[in-house]
C-alpha cells in the first residue's frame, strides 16, 4: 500500500502537532488556581491534585478574594439554576408567540387564488382566503408600468380591481374597443364564484367589454412559461387554433380586444366559442349548455348574447353545415358541437 504524498504530509503535520504539549508547570498552576477559588476551600488553596473530595457545600467561609466566589455559594448556585430555568421558559414562550405569529402571517399571506387581468397590460393579483390581495405582479412591461403607479396589495379584491380599472394608469388602455379579460385560477370553487361575481360587478360598473372566467393551473403555468397573462394566452391558443398562420408572438402584441375580434371573425359557429381552459365541455358537448357552473352569469352589459366575449356572435350561422366564406380547414375537423346557441366552450382543449 503506497500512501500518497499528501497523506504522508498530513501524517507528519499531525504528528508534529501532537508533539506539542501543555507544560507541566502551567497545568499545576491552573489546578492550583482553580482550587483556590473553590468555595470554602481556603485551607485547600495550595493543594494541587487531591483525593476525591465531597462537593457537599459547606458553610461558606471568607474565602480567597475572587470575583467568582459568592457568599452562600449553594444558595447562589440554586438561585442561578432557578434563574436560568425561568429564563429558558420565558425564551420558549417568546419563541412560541413568534412562531404562531409567523405562522398566522404566513397563512394570511397564502394566495388562495390568482386573478389574471389582461387588457393590454397583463397583471396578476394573488388573493388570499379572506378575499384580500396579498400581492400583485406584472406579466408584461405595460403591466409593470401600471403597477408602478398603483398600490393594490392589502385591499379587498373588489376594491383593488375597481381601483385598477378606474385608474388613470389603465385609462390609456381602456378605450372603446378595449376588452378586459379576467382569469381566475384556483381550486377553491366558493372563492372562485365570489371573485367572479365581484369581477363582473366591477366590469359592469365601468362599462367596458370584458369577461371573467376560470382557468386551470396548467394553463396558467403554460402562460407564464410563454411570458403571457393567462387570459391572453388562452385567447391566443384559441386564435391559433382558428388560424394556423398566427403565431404566439403576434398574439402577444395584440390587445385583448383585438384578439377577441379576430377570434370572433374566424368563428364559424353560432356562438363565440371561447375555450377557457375548462376540463369538461369539449366538442363532445352537444347539449348546448351555455355555461358551466363556473362561468360567470351573462355579462349583460357587454356581449348581447354571449357570456364569454364581447364579440358579436351573430355573424355565424347556427350550424356547421354551411361552409363559411373564410373557411378554416381547422374548423370542420375540430368543431363537433352542433347545436344552437353558443356553447361557450372552445373547440379544442389545449393545455389541460
Amino acid at each position, binding site marked *: 500500500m503506497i500512501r500518497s504524498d499528501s497523506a504522508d504530509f498530513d501524517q507528519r503535520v499531525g504528528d508534529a502537532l501532537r508533539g506539542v504539549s501543555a507544560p507541566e508547570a502551567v497545568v499545576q*498552576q491552573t489546578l492550583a488556581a482553580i482550587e483556590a477559588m473553590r468555595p470554602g476551600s481556603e485551607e485547600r488553596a495550595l493543594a494541587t491534585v487531591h483525593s476525591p473530595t465531597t462537593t457537599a457545600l459547606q458553610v461558606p467561609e471568607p474565602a480567597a478574594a475572587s470575583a467568582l466566589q459568592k457568599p452562600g455559594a449553594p444558595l447562589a448556585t440554586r438561585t442561578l439554576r432557578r434563574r436560568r430555568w425561568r429564563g429558558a421558559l420565558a425564551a420558549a414562550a417568546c419563541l412560541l408567540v413568534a412562531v404562531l405569529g409567523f405562522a398566522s402571517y404566513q397563512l394570511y399571506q397564502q394566495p388562495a387564488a390568482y386573478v389574471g387581468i389582461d387588457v393590454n397590460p397583463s397583471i396578476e393579483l394573488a388573493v388570499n382566503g379572506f378575499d384580500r390581495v396579498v400581492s400583485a405582479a406584472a406579466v408584461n412591461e405595460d403591466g409593470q408600468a401600471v403597477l408602478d403607479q398603483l398600490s393594490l396589495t392589502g385591499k379587498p379584491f373588489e376594491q383593488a380591481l375597481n381601483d385598477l380599472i378606474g385608474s388613470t394608469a389603465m385609462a390609456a388602455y381602456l378605450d372603446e374597443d378595449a376588452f378586459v379579460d379576467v382569469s381566475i385560477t384556483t381550486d377553491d370553487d366558493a372563492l372562485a364564484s365570489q371573485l367572479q361575481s365581484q369581477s363582473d360587478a366591477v366590469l359592469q360598473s365601468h362599462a367596458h367589454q370584458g369577461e371573467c372566467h376560470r382557468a386551470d393551473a396548467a394553463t396558467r403555468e403554460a402562460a407564464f412559461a410563454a411570458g403571457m397573462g393567462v387570459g391572453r394566452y388562452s385567447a391566443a391558443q384559441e386564435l391559433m387554433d382558428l388560424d394556423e398562420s398566427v403565431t404566439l408572438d403576434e398574439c402577444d402584441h395584440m390587445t385583448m380586444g383585438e384578439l377577441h375580434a379576430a377570434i370572433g371573425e374566424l368563428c364559424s359557429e353560432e356562438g363565440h366559442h371561447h375555450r377557457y381552459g375548462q376540463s369538461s365541455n369539449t366538442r363532445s358537448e352537444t347539449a348546448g349548455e351555455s355555461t358551466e357552473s363556473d362561468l360567470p352569469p351573462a355579462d349583460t352589459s357587454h356581449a348581447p348574447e354571449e357570456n364569454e366575449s364581447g364579440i358579436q356572435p351573430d355573424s355565424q350561422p347556427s350550424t356547421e353545415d354551411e361552409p363559411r366564406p373564410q373557411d378554416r380547414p381547422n374548423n370542420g375537423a375540430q368543431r363537433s358541437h352542433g347545436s344552437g346557441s353558443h356553447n361557450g366552450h372552445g373547440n379544442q382543449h389545449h393545455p389541460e
Partner: protein
Amino acid sequence: MRPAADIAQAMTAHADTVWRVCALYFPGEADRQDAFQETFLRYALADETEFADDEHRKAWLIRVARSRCLDMIKKEKRTTPLDDEGLEAAAPEPSHANDDQPDSFAHEVMDALRAMTDPPRTPVYLALCEELTAPEIARLLDAPVNTVYSWIRRGKQHLREVLS
C-alpha cells in the same frame, strides 16, 4: 464547582489539546496561559453540564478555549492603541520555550496555522491533529459539513504550499 478529581481527570486527558488550541491564537506564552486557565476554570464551574462521554468533554473544552481566545483577541483590539508597544514586544516572538520537546517542524506548523485565517485554521487543526472527522468538526463549530470539507481541503493545501 466540579469535584477536584473531575477537574484533574479532565486536565490529564485534555490539557494538551486545550493548550494547542490556545496556541493557535497566541504565540505569546502569557496569553496562552491565560486562556488555558480560563478554559479549565470554566470547566470547573460548569456544574450543570453533564458530559455524555469523554469526546463530548473534549469538544466542549475545545469550544470554550476557542471562544475564550477569540474574546481575548477582541478585547485586545479594543484596548490596544496606547499599549501597542508593550503588546507588540511581547507577542511577535512565538515562545516555544515552554513547549515540552520543541520540534522545529512543529513550530513551523504552528506558525503557519497562526498565519491562516480562521476558518480554515481551526478545522484544519482539528482534522490533522485531533483527527476529528468532518461531521464531528461541523458539530463542534456549528457549521455545515460541506463547508467543513472545503475548509479542510483548502487549509491542507495551504499548509502544503507553505511548509514544503
